[in-house]
C-alpha cells in the first residue's frame, strides 16, 4: 500500500485511514463526514489528494498531440490556464477524466485519477509517438492539497505573497507558501470556490499546517465524495467508465468538434441512456448499482447516491433511458426491494 507524504499528519489528526486505489488515505477525521462537508460549504476545508497522478507532456507538437489525445481543446489554453478534459478510448468510452494545465507553450501538466495512472500514461505514450512528444509520469514528485470553500480565498491570500484573490477560475500561478514553492490553481471538486496546490512531497506537511493554522478544517475522502456528488460532478469509475459516452451527460461541452482518438465511436452516436440527477421524494439512500424504474419498467441504474449533508435529502446520479431523462420525470429507485419515488432534476443539488 502506498502512503502520501501527509500520512503521519493524518494519523496525528486521528484520521480513519482506508484503502483507496492502493493508497492508505484518510476517509474522515474525528469531526466526521457531515461536519467536514458543511465546513467546506460554509467556510474552508483541506484535502490531501496527493495520490492523484501528475503527467508532464513536452514536445514541439504537444498541443497538437493533446488536441488528438484528449476530448477538450488545449489549443484554447495559454500558459497559466487549465481545463477539465477527458481521455477517450477507441471503444466509445473513457480511460479517465483529467485536468490539463498549460505550463508553457507546448508543455502541459495533466492531473488524473490515482487508480488510472498506469492506463493514462500507457495510452498517452502510445499516442505520443506519432507526435514526437515526451510523456513523463511525475506522480511521485508531487503532493496535491485542495483548499476548498467560500473562505478559501481569504486563507490563500493570507499565506501567499502573490495576489491570489485576483486569480481567476481555472488559472494557476507559481508562488510560495511558507517558503515552499507551489503551483496554486483556482480549481476544485467541491462546487465551492477554492484552490488546488501542487508542491514537493516533503513540503506538503508544511503547506498543510499553514492552511490548518489559518483555519481550514482537515477533510477526508468521504466528504470529498459527498461534496462532489452534491455539486453534480462525475467520478470516474462511478458515472464514467470505459463504456460511457460523455456526450450523453451534462459534460458534453467537454467534447470539442475536432479530430480525436476514437472519435468515430463517440461523435454523433445516439444516446440510449443519459446521465441525470435524481432527488428522492422519500427518505432513502440510493447507492451505486441500484436499479431505477419508471412505469414499473427498469430504465437504468444509479451511479452514485447519498444523503445530502446540506439539504438532508436523498440525492443521486443515474444513467437512465434517454426517453425518461427529462427534468421533472417521476421515477423510482429500488432500495432493498422497495420502490422509493424520486424525480429527475438537474444538478447541482446544493444551490
Amino acid at each position, binding site marked *: 500500500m502506498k502512503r502520501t507524504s501527509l500520512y503521519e499528519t493524518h494519523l496525528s489528526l486521528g484520521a480513519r485511514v482506508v484503502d483507496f486505489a492502493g493508497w492508505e488515505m484518510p*476517509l474522515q477525521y474525528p469531526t466526521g*463526514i457531515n461536519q467536514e462537508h458543511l465546513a467546506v460549504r460554509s467556510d474552508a476545508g483541506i484535502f490531501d489528494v496527493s495520490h492523484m497522478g501528475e503527467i508532464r507532456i513536452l514536445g514541439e507538437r504537444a498541443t497538437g498531440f493533446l488536441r488528438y489525445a484528449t476530448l477538450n481543446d488545449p489549443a484554447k489554453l495559454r500558459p497559466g490556464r487549465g481545463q477539465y478534459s477527458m481521455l477517450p478510448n477507441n471503444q466509445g468510452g473513457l480511460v479517465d477524466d483529467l485536468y490539463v494545465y498549460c505550463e508553457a507553450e507546448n508543455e502541459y501538466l495533466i492531473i488524473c485519477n490515482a487508480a488510472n495512472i498506469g492506463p493514462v500514461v500507457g495510452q498517452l505514450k502510445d499516442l505520443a509517438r506519432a507526435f514526437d512528444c515526451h510523456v513523463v509520469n511525475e506522480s511521485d514528485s508531487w503532493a496535491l492539497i485542495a483548499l476548498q470553500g467560500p473562505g478559501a480565498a481569504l486563507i490563500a491570500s493570507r499565506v501567499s505573497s502573490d495576489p491570489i484573490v485576483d486569480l481567476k477560475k481555472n488559472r494557476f500561478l507559481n508562488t510560495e507558501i511558507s517558503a515552499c514553492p507551489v503551483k496554486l490553481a483556482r480549481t476544485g471538486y467541491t462546487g465551492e470556490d477554492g484552490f488546488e496546490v501542487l508542491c514537493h512531497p516533503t513540503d506538503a506537511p508544511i503547506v498543510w499546517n499553514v492552511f490548518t493554522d489559518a483555519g481550514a478544517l482537515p477533510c477526508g475522502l*468521504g466528504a470529498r465524495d459527498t461534496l462532489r456528488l452534491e455539486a453534480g460532478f462525475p467520478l470516474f469509475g462511478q458515472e464514467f467508465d470505459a463504456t460511457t459516452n460523455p456526450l450523453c451527460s451534462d459534460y458534453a461541452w467537454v467534447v470539442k468538434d475536432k479530430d480525436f482518438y476514437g472519435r468515430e465511436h463517440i461523435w454523433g452516436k445516439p444516446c440510449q441512456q443519459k446521465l441525470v440527477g435524481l432527488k428522492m421524494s422519500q427518505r432513502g*439512500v440510493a447507492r451505486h448499482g441500484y436499479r431505477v424504474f419508471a412505469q414499473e419498467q427498469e430504465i437504468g441504474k444509479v451511479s452514485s447516491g447519498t444523503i445530502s449533508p446540506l439539504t438532508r435529502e436523498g440525492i443521486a446520479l443515474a444513467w437512465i433511458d434517454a426517453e425518461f431523462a427529462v427534468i421533472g420525470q417521476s421515477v423510482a429507485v429500488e432500495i432493498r426491494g422497495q420502490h422509493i419515488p424520486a424525480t429527475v432534476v438537474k444538478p447541482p443539488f446544493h444551490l
Partner: protein
Amino acid sequence: MQTPSELKYSRSHEWSQVSADGKLITVGISDFAQDQLGDVVFVELPEPGRKVNAGEAVAVIESVKTASDIYAPVSGEIIEVNEALLDAPEGINDSPYEAGWLFKIRSENPAELAELLDAAAYIKIAEEG
C-alpha cells in the same frame, strides 16, 4: 469508547438492555459500532407487532459510506421503535445507549438471553475486529 457493563451485547455489535423481569429487551448499537460506521444518515426500523427470530435482520442503519443490517438479539415481538431516529438518525452517533436506541422486543424465550455477551467479552471481540 463506552461499553456500559449493565448491558448485554451481540457479536454483531447490538446492545441489549434487559428489563428487571427479563421480558422487555431494548436494543441499540454499541459506541464501537457507531464509531466504525461514521455519520449515520438513514435508519429503517421494523414495524411494531412484527414477530422476529434471534439473529434475524430487522433494521438497517446507513452511514455515508455503507448500509448495515441490525439483527434481533432475541426472538419475540417488536413492541416499540424509536421513531425520533427517522428524522434525526444522528442520535445513534450522539447517544448510542440512550437517545439512539432502535427498538424494543418482548422476549419469548428467556434462555436466549444467556447467549448474549457481557461487556468484557464484547470488548474483547470488538478489539480483535
